[in-house]
């Protein structure tokens, strides 16, 4: 197991380095001055220029420059945002939790709705139920997310007027950021309006979270269904049935834990697409997360923001997908057998 762990850690570092190299190369291809693209200072004075070239070793060869680039970026020097003139790192710290909040809620909705529905789709012998669940998931999988978001906001936000369609919370509420998660911050704040603020934050979260949850939901339903169909044919399920266990017990205790393994794996594969969808959803609902920050960065050609956004999002995806792969191997003895040909 340890050998596998270190191989994964190795892979993480190698992948990160390659990603940094891609970013480093792209940074030098930006159609602006090198020092401007690296630091975000548009008209640097002579000493600032010297400072930048000292930090990023601009006078050395490209290998040294690359190492300096990696060192600067990982020590938190992301430069200044060209647009807001704030340090990019500080901005990143405020936008990342908002994105986490949205994607966590969306992921949880998808998981807690998707798994039971997948199980029902697998176990139901009713053709109508099966076809309608499959048709629904296929449609959900094919729907363009930006169009879904617009339609939902037009319908529930404008025509029916039930839910707010932009932002994280009504601007009237002054909430001091503690964790960065608006739902928790509103409860933690000591103001008199914390409960209405919490409700307001929750209302703001519903539409974007549902829009973002559609894709993982459909995938989880489909994969749970497939895995359940396979697991229910195994001999140990028949043995449990022969012992006279209740169907519910069999599903919860014997079938689901085994069916969850491929679901976990597919979640790891899905992360990249999920991040794409998250960015689009944040843009549509003006969610103050890393996605809308990044897209407004590209509209304004804010090169430091672009680098920081891409770096943080891809690092997160690399890290999470390797972590999920590791957990998948750790809890699944079958894959250990594949690795070492022994248990």
């Amino acid at each position, binding site marked *: 197991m340890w050998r596998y762990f270190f191989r994964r850690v190795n*892979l993480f570092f*190698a*992948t*990160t380095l*390659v*990603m940094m190299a*891609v*970013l480093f190369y*792209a940074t030098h*291809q*930006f*159609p602006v001055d090198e020092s401007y693209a690296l630091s975000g200072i548009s008209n640097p004075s002579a000493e600032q220029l010297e400072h930048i070239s000292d930090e990023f070793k601009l006078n050395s060869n490209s290998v040294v420059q690359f190492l300096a680039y990696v060192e600067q970026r990982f020590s938190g020097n992301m430069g200044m945002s060209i647009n807001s003139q704030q340090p990019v790192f500080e901005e990143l710290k405020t936008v990342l939790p908002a994105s986490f909040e949205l994607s966590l809620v969306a992921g949880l909705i998808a998981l807690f709705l998707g798994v039971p529905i997948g199980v029902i789709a697998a176990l139901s012998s009713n053709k109508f139920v099966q076809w309608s669940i499959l*048709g629904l998931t*296929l*449609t959900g*999988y*094919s*729907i*363009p*997310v*930006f*169009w879904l978001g*617009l*339609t939902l906001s*037009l319908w529930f936000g*404008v025509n029916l007027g039930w839910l707010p369609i932009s932002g994280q919370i009504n601007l009237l509420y002054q909430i001091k950021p503690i964790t960065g998660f608006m739902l928790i911050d509103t409860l933690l704040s000591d103001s008199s309006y914390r409960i209405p603020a919490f409700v307001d934050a929750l209302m703001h979260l519903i539409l974007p979270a549902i829009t973002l949850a559609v894709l993982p939901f459909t995938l989880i339903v489909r994969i749970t269904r497939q895995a359940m169909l396979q697991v229910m044919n195994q001999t140990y399920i028949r043995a449990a049935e022969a012992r006279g266990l209740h169907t519910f017990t069999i599903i919860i205790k014997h079938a689901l834990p085994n069916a969850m393994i491929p679901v976990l794996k597919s979640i790891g594969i899905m992360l*990249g*697409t999920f*991040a*794409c969808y998250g*960015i*689009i959803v944040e*843009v549509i609902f003006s969610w103050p997360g890393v996605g809308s920050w*990044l*897209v407004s960065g*590209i*509209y304004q*050609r804010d*090169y430091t923001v*672009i680098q920081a*956004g*891409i770096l943080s*999002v*891809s690092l997160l*995806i*690399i890290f999470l*997908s390797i972590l999920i792969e590791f957990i998948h191997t750790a809890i699944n003895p079958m894959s250990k057998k594949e690795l070492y040909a022994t248990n």
Partner: protein
Amino acid sequence: MPQIKIYKQDYISTPAGRVWKAFSHNPFALVGLWGVGFLLVLALLAPFIAPYGANEQNQQVLLLPPSWDPAGHVEYFLGTDDLGRDIFSRILHGVQMTFGMSLVIVSCALFFGFIIGAISGMMRGLKSSILGHLLDALLSIPSLLMAILVVAVIGPGLSNVFWAVGIAMVPQFIRTIHQAVHDELQKEYVTAARLDGANDLQILLYVIMPNVWEVLIIQVTMAISAAILDIAALGFLNLGAQAPSPEWGAMVAQGLDNLLLAPWTVTIPGVAILFSVLAVNLVGDGLRSAIAPIRK
């Protein structure tokens, strides 16, 4: 008249024939296949069928509702947008951009992915691992981020959609083909062929390929649907196709200003995207369930 069997032996259909038989027994898959064929025909014939040009403006009919609305007019079947352009014609022209472009991107990605994936799949050890894992880094950069990076370097335009979606897609093909070739290579019939004296190229082309192409086809259909969604999403975010273009995602973005006044300018291109992705996914799903029992 019942068919008379002259010979005693049963006719055993080819693997492709069996896949087709299973595929055509699934009505949804056939609907999807008709849909894809319809889109292909439209992609070829769109400029001849479309009643108006993609950017032809008629100032007399701004924001005309679709023809089933009492205020609509049948000459503008799906209505017009805020510049008086016929949406029906624009959708037809858009087939080439969104659907046609996804085909081009996927075939290019397939070409390069196949070459690299086959080479790395046939090799063993460190070389294979380097080729296989080097591109994992690119795999982890979502296509949208890739597009943002490309736009930052060369500016927005339809050509960078090609690069962004293509670069994001090649590693997926490499991984699929690498894995499939690698798995087949462990099997005994390959060893048998090797003992017969086949070299690596022969093993790849004549021994392994016939058993891999099914996986490949499924991957291709999945890639096409993902490519359509990506192209449209980039067009919507103004990072891909630019404003007057009839690309469907860009059409949604252009209709956004009039969302409240004229929701059809957003709804209709969205339905077009949904329809084409659904058709491709139905075909892919049908293929998967047709191939799955044979592979067991």
